Every structure is written in structure tokens, then in C-alpha cells.
């Protein structure tokens, strides 16, 4: 097979379309894997049940969600850049008493429902938090 015969110097419309598509895909890939670059300080509340992530809620927009897990129902509320468990029918109420969390690495734990809300995202001077000892 010889390349010489099909060489064209002027790109046609189809070529330009493909180039555009590649650039768009590349941009999408960058945005998807480097979301921090697009929005500085973007944080999200990661909701997990039984250790599996069920939802990521961006902290910059208000949201109300209900989750039912292991027989308990929790209402999670995102407002003013923070997240809290507004209501729960669990027996301990530790999750509700934790109040609002807003910094990376902080978490709310509901042991009876096996539900956690953890803040992920923009660095805030540390990687991990110790000493929040969950009471039995």
C-alpha cells in the first residue's frame, strides 16, 4: 500500500470536523479528571451507605436528600457551603448532633444506618483528621 497517492495538501471539511471533535474530547477528559482546575475550592459531600458511595453533592448549591438505609431514614441538607443530617429516625441521633460539617476530611457518621457523609475536595491545609472518636 502506498501513502503517496492519497496525500492531499488542503484539509477538507471532514478533517476539520474530526480535529474539532478530538479537541472537544480532550477538553472534556481534562475537565472530568481535573475538576479542581475548573472551579477553585469546589468541595462535595460524599454520601456512602454500607461503605458504598451513593451520591456526591456539591457544597456550593443547596440540596435536600432523603436516604433510607438499614431500616432508618435520614434527611441530609446542603446549605451555606456545609452539610448536615437535618433529621434521622436512628436511635442514637449522633449523626444529627454532629451538626454542620464544611471542611475537607470532616465526616458525619450514622452507625445504626451505616451511612456516612464525608467532605472531599479542595485542600484546606491537611489531609486527615484525628480525634473525632465515634462513641460506641
Amino acid at each position, binding site marked *: 500500500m502506498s*501513502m503517496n497517492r*492519497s496525500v492531499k495538501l488542503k484539509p477538507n471539511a*471532514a*478533517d476539520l470536523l*474530526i*480535529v474539532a*471533535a*478530538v479537541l472537544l*474530547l*480532550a477538553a472534556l*477528559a*481534562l475537565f*472530568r*479528571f*481535573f475538576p479542581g482546575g475548573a472551579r477553585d475550592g469546589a468541595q462535595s459531600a460524599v454520601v*456512602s451507605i*454500607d*461503605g*458504598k458511595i451513593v451520591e456526591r453533592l456539591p457544597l456550593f448549591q443547596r440540596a435536600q436528600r432523603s436516604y433510607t438505609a438499614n431500616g432508618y431514614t435520614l434527611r441530609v441538607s446542603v446549605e451555606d457551603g456545609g452539610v448536615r443530617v437535618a433529621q434521622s429516625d436512628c436511635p442514637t441521633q449522633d449523626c444529627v448532633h*454532629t*451538626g454542620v*460539617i*464544611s*471542611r475537607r*476530611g*470532616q465526616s458525619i*457518621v450514622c*452507625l445504626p444506618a*451505616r451511612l*456516612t457523609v*464525608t467532605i472531599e475536595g479542595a485542600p484546606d*491545609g*491537611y*489531609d*486527615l*483528621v*484525628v*480525634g*473525632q*472518636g*465515634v*462513641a*460506641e
Partner: protein
Amino acid sequence: MIRRIIPLLMACVLLTGCAQTDTDSSASKTVFAMDTIMTLTVYDGARADALRAAETELTRLDALLDRAAAGSAVYSLNANGTVRSEELSALLSTAAEIARESDGAFDPTIAPVLALWGFGSGNVYRVPGQEELAAALDTVGMERVTISGAEITLPEHAQIDLGGIAKGYAGERVRAIFAAHGVTSATIDLGGDVCLLGNKPDGSPWRVAIRDPADRERYLGVLAARDCFIVTSGVYERFFMDNGVCYHHIIDPATGCPAASGLVSVSVVCADGAWADALSTAVSVLGIQDALALRERLRQSVPFEFIALTSDGRVCYTDGVAGTFTPDGESGYVYEPLC
């Protein structure tokens, strides 16, 4: 035409591929074990296999060490006064060594006294009477537990609770599993206590914030650390009020009463998980001066550092972390390096 599309499509695939391997480099798993939530995060090595193996191991350890689970080795030991288990025997030998070194400030045989106060599982909080307290204290003493090979025997009426060492030991086991899977950078959050494996993926140390027990939104400071355990014990974790007096769960085995060491919270930094865990209790019971003496005694064998919050609002920290612990200026506490 087709010949021009193929290289472009290839470029497209390459671009996406690169972006993915560059940043999608951590894998994490949440595990419910030992009455808490553990979060394991690995940054390299055989990540998925490492996490799976770690979860299996944590479940196994829970079944071995949970004194409330019928069928566990610790349950059998408490119920029958004796049990055969090589692993439990090794862990109890470590516990006995820490009890000896700390003059009994850490002692897993304190279980019957904890139960009297209601700090056992499912009990009701109350202040015990002098006589029953004296009777329970008579059963306490790790040195009277017989460990002979895999065979463990308790003296009459004695009970064991490994709550003060089991999590640290579990962290030790997970760290070994990670290492065996080629992991060199990982964090193991044991529900408020952490094990750090190696450095962060960028080569810098992990930055660990120590929570202010008085205010969840505030911090005592940030510690830069690598390859160690950071385990915190605090009187605030469990307590009750009775007639205006606060009774907390860190019981001094010498008196059978809540420790009056003047420490509210203690974070111990140590390379060994079981020791870090047990030492956080020991330091809480001993108070600053005796804890410094203990640290001196262990300087060659098990070096450790600690950061302690006192009830009069001072944050005291040992010289080994003086260069890596950054006090939080907004905490309102007085910072005091120890030497």
C-alpha cells in the same frame, strides 16, 4: 480519508488514557469493623486486591477479638477462663508488656471495673459503691494472666477487654497486607485514629489535623507525619454526669475510678499500632510527668511522642514533634513544648 481518521482517533484515545492514569490514582474503601467506621485509602501498588484483602482481614479480626461476639476467642476466654489461640496469645503478650512498662496504667483486665461504671457494652451508667469496686479491682492485674505458648488462662473472675489495643493491632495487620501488595503510600483511618503508610503520593509528609475535643470545627494543630500511627484517647469520648460530677471512661486501674491526671485528650505518635493504641490510654491515666518518665524508659525499645490537651487549657507536646506540629493560632489554647 480513513487513513487520516485513524491517527486522530488514536490521539484521542491517548489523551483520555493519559488523563486517567495521572489523577485517578487513589482507591479507597470504607469498612465497618470494631464498632467503628474505617476508611482505607491506597495510592499505589495492587490497590483493589490490597483493599479487598484488608477488608477480609478486618472482618476476621473482628470475629477474633470482639468480646461481645459469641464464638470469638476473647469471648471464649472470658466465658471459660481459658482459650487456645496463637494470635490472641501474641497480642496478649504485647498487652502484658505494655501493662508492665506503664506500671499498670494500661491494663486490659480492667474490664470488670469498666462494667461496674457502665462503660462496658449495653450497661447503664452509675457510680459504683466502695465494696463492689474493691471486689472488682481484686480481679484486675494483667500479670496474673497466664500465657503459655498458645494457651491463655485467666485467674478466677478476671475478664479481658482488648478495646484499648485491638484497633491499633488491626491497623498493624492492614499495614502489613498493604505492604505485601506493593503499596508504599496509604492512609488507614481507624475511626478517628490513623495509620500512615509512607508519604503522600507527591513525596511530602501527610498533614494530620488533631481535632479540638471542645469544638468539632476547631483543631489543636496540624502534624506532618509519615510511617506512623496517631492514636487519640479522650475523656470526652464517653462520660456521664451524676450529682454535678463528671465521670469519664478512662479508668485508672490503680484506683478503679476515672483517671484524675488532668488530661482531656492525648494523641500518641508511634511506629507500632498496638503500642500507640495502648499508650494513648496509658498517657491519659498517667498524666504529663509520669508519661514523660514512661517515654524515657521506652526511648530505646518503643520510641513515642505525644500531644496532650490539659483541663486548664494547655496543649503540651514532646520535643520529637516540636518541629512537625504546627499549633492552630485560632484554638485559644496555650502551647507548651515539653522537654
